[in-house]
């Protein structure tokens, strides 16, 4: 009876397991095999080498030279990516935390209304939201019109401005951050905060000593959920700037796909990005599992 029952549940899980094996594990391994693979000189097409014992390091050496060599081309792009993402993440947290905190703690009966408004952008296509800013920031758009009232001549926001790209990243990813923060802050037992107050802490010190430590997990999760996709972003800067001076690591990878002779290097670059992000990714998985088990 026990065995029969087990077999039944195994049968339920097997289709998903096969799907994941064929279309998640194999593809990720394919990137590795292409990155460590060779180049078909005639067609300039990548040749995947599936056997780890015959891997070649030519692509890795090329990418390494590109990232850290003297005539480094990818190095500045990688540095720019880190700077953009760091600034965007800090700004997102600075804007998102107060809003999530207010809605979770003080919105009272209007909580549902505020929540709808907070997560509305979550339901609106990313491209539509970028399009909205392109309209506003264009030379004859509303932003320049408003600046004109103060006698400021029109600014070419969309011609390669880092400010526009960073603000675009913040605008694009902040709904995810707010949603995670809200869920975390909403779970804090109000009794703990009241206890802080009853023990004589003011509003500010209650926040610093009670609310903030209790929301540490939520802050980390919210930052991860925004930073991970930001590091692979190649479309925000293409929409809002398009200039090489604002390109990020995602643009390098995306540009190498479909470019003869460079696909192997694109694979290596993706693998490096994955390796760098593997630790925070696994941390996130373990942290959410622990949360769910509680």
């Amino acid at each position, binding site marked *: 009876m026990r065995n029969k029952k087990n077999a039944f549940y195994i049968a339920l899980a097997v289709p998903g397991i096969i799907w994941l094996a064929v279309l998640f594990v194999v593809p990720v391994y394919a990137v590795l095999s292409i990155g460590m693979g060779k180049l078909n000189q005639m067609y300039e097409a990548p040749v995947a080498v599936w056997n780890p014992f015959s891997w070649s390091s030519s692509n890795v050496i090329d990418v390494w030279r590109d990232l850290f060599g003297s005539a480094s081309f990818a190095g500045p792009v990688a540095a720019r990516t880190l700077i953009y993402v760091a600034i965007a993440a800090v700004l997102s947290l600075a804007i998102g935390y107060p809003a999530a905190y207010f809605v979770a703690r003080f919105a009272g009966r209007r909580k549902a209304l505020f929540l709808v408004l907070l997560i509305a952008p979550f339901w609106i296509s990313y491209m539509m939201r970028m399009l909205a800013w*392109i309209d506003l920031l264009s030379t004859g758009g509303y932003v320049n019109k408003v600046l004109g009232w103060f006698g400021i001549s029109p600014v070419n926001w969309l011609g390669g401005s880092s400010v526009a790209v960073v603000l675009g990243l913040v605008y694009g990813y902040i709904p995810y951050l707010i949603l995670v923060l809200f869920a975390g802050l909403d779970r804090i037992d109000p009794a703990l905060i009241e206890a802080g107050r009853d023990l004589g802490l003011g509003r500010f010190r209650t926040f610093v000593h009670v609310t903030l430590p209790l929301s540490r997990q939520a802050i980390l999760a919210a930052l991860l959920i925004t930073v991970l996709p930001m590091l692979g972003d190649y479309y925000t800067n293409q929409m809002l700037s398009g200039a090489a001076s604002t390109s990020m690591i995602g643009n390098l990878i995306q540009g190498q796909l479909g470019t003869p002779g460079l696909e192997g290097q694109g694979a290596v670059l993706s693998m490096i990005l994955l390796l760098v992000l593997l630790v925070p990714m696994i941390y996130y998985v373990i942290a959410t599992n622990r949360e769910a088990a509680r």
Partner: protein
Amino acid sequence: MTATNAPVPEAPDAPGAAGSTAPPASAPARAGTQAARRSWLPWRNPWGHPWFLEGFTWLYLIWSLVPIAIAVLFSFNNGRSQSTWQGFSWRWYFTDPVNSVLHNPQLHAAVIQTVRLSVLTTLIAVPLGVAFAIGINRWRGPVPATFNFLMILSYVIPELIFGVSMFFVFTTLFSTVHLGTTAEVLGLVTWNVSWPAIVVQARLVTLGSHYEEAAADLGANQFQVIRRVLLPLLAPAIFASAVLVFSGVIDDFVIVDLLSSSAGNTPMSVVIYSTQHGGNGGPALNALGTIMLAMSLIIVVIGYVGYRVLTRGERGGGLAALTAISGEN
């Protein structure tokens, strides 16, 4: 919270913290702040409404939503301008014989492709993910644990890396699947199957196994337990995950951008991106974006109402429904 307007008693300072730094002379000054704490100064009254925070939140909401409202408004503009109102028209939707969404073949095809991808992906990913969740939840051992971990990993892996791996696998290993609709659906299913798998598993953990054991004790067999007990109990979670998958596919960009091959299989998000980026933006793109927005909105409303109906009699109400269909539970 009702008795909180009573004067807050002055708590003695903790000996280690403030007491050691504050000179004794500050004692009279502290007595003065006792009165000030309940005065008009908003930050002095710990129980008052945080007007500053509320104002900040409203500013954020304006910044977050007004640009989109303007973009939607100008999709109805009777002219090319995105900042000068020239009267209401359906020009960019139907009436313009060349540039409207209806008559421009690329825009028109994009709407159909988005709907096609959403429907196909939801129909495949939801049963696959639900079966996986039920099976993995009851099957103990290293194999299910490994694949459960992989499933969650597929949920957090950056979409670009996932898209690159899909691109390579369909251009080298499984090259019989050409880039196009089939590759897009396979990629989107893999990317989205984690929604039902994770959401349904979370619900299974909360439910426990009591209901199934009771049904089994009363003589139900495996299929009856699943069909009569488990599926009805899981219905809200399954429904919420279907809403998440469907709307996720409407909004998806990276996977479909990397896996589409021609105008016939390019969905709306990619058309907006490539047309705008190619310098051919215009109000017809705003119209396309507004159609995407309307589609998502319809899905959200259906999701909200459906979730409320399915969870009648449960605690949580509207807030729980909202967070469930936005994937936070």
